[in-house]
């Protein structure tokens, strides 16, 4: 089971200054949604923004804790 608070912390650590929200899509802890607004996304394509978020969560993908992660990114206005 993924720890939502831990995942939030991992993304915040990788993207200092980001605003991060994690929600659990199924209630089982393996399909999560990350909504991330980060200044580091400025000028990046959506896929590159998503790559940054996925890279931050890489350990939890590799150990199978997270099965799927929906990502929604934006640049803070």
């Amino acid at each position, binding site marked *: 089971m993924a720890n939502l608070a831990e995942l939030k912390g991992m993304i915040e650590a990788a993207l200092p200054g980001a605003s991060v929200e994690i929600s659990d899509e199924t209630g089982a802890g393996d399909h999560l949604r990350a909504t991330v607004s980060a200044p580091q996304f400025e000028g990046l394509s*959506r*896929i590159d923004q*998503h*790559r940054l978020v*996925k890279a931050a969560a890489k350990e939890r993908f*590799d150990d199978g804790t997270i099965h*799927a992660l*929906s*990502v*929604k990114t934006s640049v803070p206005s």
Partner: protein
Amino acid sequence: MPGMADPELKSKVEELIGANPVLLFMKGTPDMPRCGFSMRVVQVLDQVDVEYGAIDVLPALQPLREVTAEISDWQTFPQLYVNGELIGGADIVEEMFESGELAEALGVEQPAVAQVPQDGPPAQSPPLQIE
């Protein structure tokens, strides 16, 4: 932990990406998607009404993850490639569809009603198969 990608498979994948202006790596087939994310991309492509190739990754899931990790630094499926470039998975495809960017990238007209569907019609395009 992921290993080195199979060179023959990687070469085949690169060939397919080059040969198909629109190529979807998905779980299952357009007629029978086997995951919700893959189904969402198929539904969007149906609305945009564009020809596309489809590869079912399930018969070779881990080897294909290794290949796309090397080609595109991306290991989850579905993956939509347009003109040789990875656009993204379901989230990105849906966002771009709603904004009109997807139709633009595909060189087609934005459908009059561009809504992310809850229930879509089955796809018409035939799937390709990797040997």
